[in-house]
């Protein structure tokens, strides 16, 4: 059952951009210094609010990419071409700038080491962000339960956190990272080269009998398709948690 919720009203607070980390051509992480941050669970998100000089405001939600053990609260933002907030966060914001945020938000789509596993993380494009918070926490907590990340990106260059994922997997035999590249593959690529389907998930996912917990995040269509496939592979509904990001993403 869900753990008891903490009674806490959300208030906006000012965060300072401590570091800007380019991830891919269209994706950037922002490490934020938040003075009154209460801590968070991997999988939660925060809201960002931008205010123009004439008072116009725009607000969006971004998954927290950092582990609760990390020094700063990080978000990872993908620039949407005709977006209103993401181009500002990816192209304009600089170290030292301040950003209004509120959070952490959410509780259903979270995993901490005490929740156990085995763990199946399924990511489409920027859907990898909350799952990365889970993996970073998992490493910090020294969790050794079998864990698989199945991660779909358009091309090799679009893989967010690629080097860090390579490092985590190389250092930890209980973690497996499986990539699929759907639009283009580098020469010599021996991995998957298509969108998620039943065959791929049947090959990669821990069998339902292991009582694995699945977290699926990314564009709506991909999430719904993957969740349906997992249901077809006999994962019970309570063991599949989904977070839809809407139309965008890989």
């Amino acid at each position, binding site marked *: 059952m*869900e753990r*008891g919720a903490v009674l806490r009203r959300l208030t906006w607070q000012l965060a300072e951009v401590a570091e800007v980390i380019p991830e891919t051509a269209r994706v950037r992480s922002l490490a934020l210094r938040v003075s009154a941050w209460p801590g968070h669970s991997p999988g939660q998100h925060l*809201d960002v609010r931008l205010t123009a000089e004439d008072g116009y405001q725009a607000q969006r939600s971004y998954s927290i990419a950092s582990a609760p053990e990390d020094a700063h609260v990080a978000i990872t933002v993908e620039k949407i071409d005709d977006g209103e907030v993401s181009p500002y966060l990816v192209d304009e914001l600089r170290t030292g700038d301040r950003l209004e945020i509120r959070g952490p938000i959410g509780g259903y789509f979270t995993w901490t080491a005490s929740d156990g596993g085995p763990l199946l993380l399924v990511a489409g494009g920027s859907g990898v962000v909350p799952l990365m918070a889970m993996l970073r926490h998992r490493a910090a907590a020294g969790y050794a339960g079998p864990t698989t990340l199945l991660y779909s990106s358009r091309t090799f260059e679009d893989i967010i956190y690629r080097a860090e994922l390579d490092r985590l997997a190389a250092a930890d035999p209980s973690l497996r990272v499986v990539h699929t590249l759907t639009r283009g593959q580098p020469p010599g690529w021996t991995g998957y080269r298509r969108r998620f389907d039943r065959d791929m998930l049947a090959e990669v996912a821990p069998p339902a009998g292991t009582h694995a917990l699945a977290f699926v995040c990314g564009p*709506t*269509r991909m999430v719904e398709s993957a969740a349906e496939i997992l249901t077809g592979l006999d994962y019970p509904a309570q063991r599949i*948690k989904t977070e*839809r*990001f809407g139309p965008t993403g890989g």
Partner: protein
Amino acid sequence: MDPLDMRLDGNAAAGMLMDIFGQDMTGALTTCATCHAENPVGRLLVYAHGMGTVIRCSNCGNVQMKVALIRGGYGVDLRGVRTLRIWRAS
């Protein structure tokens, strides 16, 4: 853009619901007034835009919750929910 692509889930309504109820609601359980399916709010389907947020049953598609974004606050219609089970905040 097809609204299907823009469909989200209860996680997207988490901040708004926390504003209204004072705690995270994505783990709260609803029983649908139409089909009686029980689901955590995090699993329900969400259609959100500038006028408000509509939360639909993931089983039958009927509206469970409607939250209008009105000046100064929210207009909340929960007629589509038969029962809402919330855990006591710690």
